[in-house]
């Protein structure tokens, strides 16, 4: 796809960069500033997880159309340690790093669609989407 934005995540400035790009992509796609903030917050959580648990990875941003809806798609990929217990990782308050354990479940609440795939020793991919009605 031509209008796909690939953002490497390898330092904390990349997390800020990714959420700001996410906000911009959402703005260009006509999302309200409230939704832009929601998308930026979700990206911030997921990008920080890449940095914290996998050290490096990437965020890919794109815009898709589906009938009378338009969506921002955020894909976060890394080849880090993976997540052993995905169900637990998605529970509020579960953290292996002394964090609040709200990043994954919170991002899931913020977005309309959220999918997490992970294999131990291979890496983690989070795909999340936010939709808006056209017209």
């Amino acid at each position, binding site marked *: 796809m031509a209008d796909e934005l690939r953002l490497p995540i390898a330092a904390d400035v990349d997390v800020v960069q990714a959420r700001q790009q996410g906000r911009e992509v959402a703005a260009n796609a006509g999302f309200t500033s409230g939704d832009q903030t929601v998308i930026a*917050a979700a990206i911030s959580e997921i990008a920080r997880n890449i940095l914290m648990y996998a050290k490096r990875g990437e965020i890919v941003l794109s815009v898709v159309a589906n009938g009378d809806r338009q969506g921002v798609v955020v894909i976060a990929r890394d080849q880090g340690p993976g997540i052993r217990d995905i169900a637990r990782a998605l529970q509020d308050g579960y953290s292996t790093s002394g964090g609040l354990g709200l990043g994954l479940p919170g991002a899931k609440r913020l977005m309309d669609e959220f999918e997490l795939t992970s294999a131990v020793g291979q890496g983690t991919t989070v795909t999340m989407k936010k939709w808006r009605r056209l017209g």
Partner: protein
Amino acid sequence: MEVPILKQGHYLIASIQSALTDADLSQLREALIERVGRFRARGVIVDVTALDVMDSFAVRTLRDIAHMARLRGADTVIVGIQPEVAFAMVQLGLTLKGVATALDLEEGLAFLNQQGEGRLEDRRPPGGRIDRG
């Protein structure tokens, strides 16, 4: 991007000017705690009006600032959380439990002044009154 910290009387005011990295936030925490001691500050205001998002790390750092300042004898108030930022925080499940917040700088200052008065009240003798005249 370093956050400027202003000293105003017994208060320290940190005005965040732009989006902050995690390292910037940690640095703000260290700088504030150090200055609370150096200036014997009674109150800390963190103005987050310009913050683009409040995510789990930002909230954790602000909570740490408030708790650490408290242990050093200063009250903290967070001001300027924008409505959209507040909405996203609620969805994320983030709370600033135990941390004072106010709408803006003015309200924040009013809050700290009130806390200061409360402290004076605490020191009054039983049944006594503080003569402010």
